[in-house]
């Protein structure tokens, strides 16, 4: 009938380099960082004595969202000093995710593993650093020899705890963000290609051409779904970072 030509994965994910080592993925990442900086610089210029309007209103509600929706739910009152860190994580990930559905850009920067990996290593360094700061070298001791566990089980639980904190956590953080966005991107590409192939099919069976409406409806639906995924994955990454930081602060107080 007709052949659906699915492009090789490199064609989906590798974009033209503007000049060596700087492609569109890097452009999106740089743009998202710049947008956040400029946005908050603008919001900072407004008079704090007046009722917030415009840019400052949005900025204040985003700070409130991080404080009420993420920090108070996971870290409690003492975690409020982490607001800038978590806010910048959330906004950067969100702005890297959302180009997946923006026409012209059409590529989430987090669908290449470099950015999720970099971010989760950043979080990894942070929570290990926090653990070392709050508990000293005893942090690794607590990991390997967890208090409050029966002695017979301590080697086993300690090993599991150590491996899951040091190795599995950054890996799962990376893969969760990366694979969600990659899957979404490939889904959109698949339905886009299907629509195109049906619409321009050179076939004698003309009834196939109007069928292209069906994958198009699915494409619209999936685009809306991808917006949801972009917000949700940024939220989940941020909330997990908060939980990990809280864990390395808290285990000191238990005994």
């Amino acid at each position, binding site marked *: 009938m007709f052949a659906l030509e699915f492009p090789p994965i490199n064609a989906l994910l590798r974009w033209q380099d503007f000049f060596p080592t700087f492609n569109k993925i890097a452009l999106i990442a740089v743009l998202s960082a710049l947008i956040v900086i400029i946005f908050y610089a603008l919001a900072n210029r407004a008079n704090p004595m007046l009722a917030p309007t415009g840019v400052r209103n949005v900025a204040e509600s985003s700070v409130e969202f991080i404080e009420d929706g993420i920090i108070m739910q996971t870290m409690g009152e003492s975690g409020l000093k982490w607001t800038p860190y978590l806010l910048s994580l959330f906004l950067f990930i969100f702005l890297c995710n959302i180009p997946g559905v923006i026409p012209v850009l059409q590529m989430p920067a987090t669908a290449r593993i470099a950015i999720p990996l970099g971010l989760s290593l950043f979080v990894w360094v942070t929570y290990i650093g926090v653990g070392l700061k709050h508990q000293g070298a005893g942090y690794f001791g607590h990991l390997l020899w967890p208090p409050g566990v029966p002695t017979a089980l301590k080697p086993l639980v300690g090993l599991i705890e150590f491996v899951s904190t040091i190795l599995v956590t950054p890996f799962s953080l990376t893969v*969760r963000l990366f*694979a969600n966005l990659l899957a979404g991107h490939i889904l959109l590409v698949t339905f886009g290609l299907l629509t195109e192939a049906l619409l321009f099919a050179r076939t004698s069976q003309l009834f196939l051409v109007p069928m292209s409406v069906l994958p198009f409806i699915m494409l619209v639906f999936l685009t809306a779904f991808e917006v949801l995924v972009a917000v949700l994955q940024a939220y989940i990454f941020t909330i997990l970072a908060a939980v990990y930081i809280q864990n390395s602060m808290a285990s000191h107080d238990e005994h």
Partner: protein
Amino acid sequence: MEAFSILVQQASGFTADEQKSIEAASTAGFAYGLAAIGPALGIGYLVGKSVEAMARQPEAAGMVRTTMFLGIAFTEALALIGFVVFILLKFA
């Protein structure tokens, strides 16, 4: 195993590379399908229980929702690793 794949190769008339990509493509679907079963059950159970809890105690809905998202994130990771394996098999 070696002898078996040589036999299959001679019987089917594909070269080793073609045979490899055919096998990879036909197992990729199974890999993802199998990886999706467990997390699907897990997420269904998790969200169902969370809705139950929210219906019983609407004032605790915020806390339940946060914990639910955390649980979903951990459960979903398995399916996503399965998806990465699918991509590796299909395209690599």
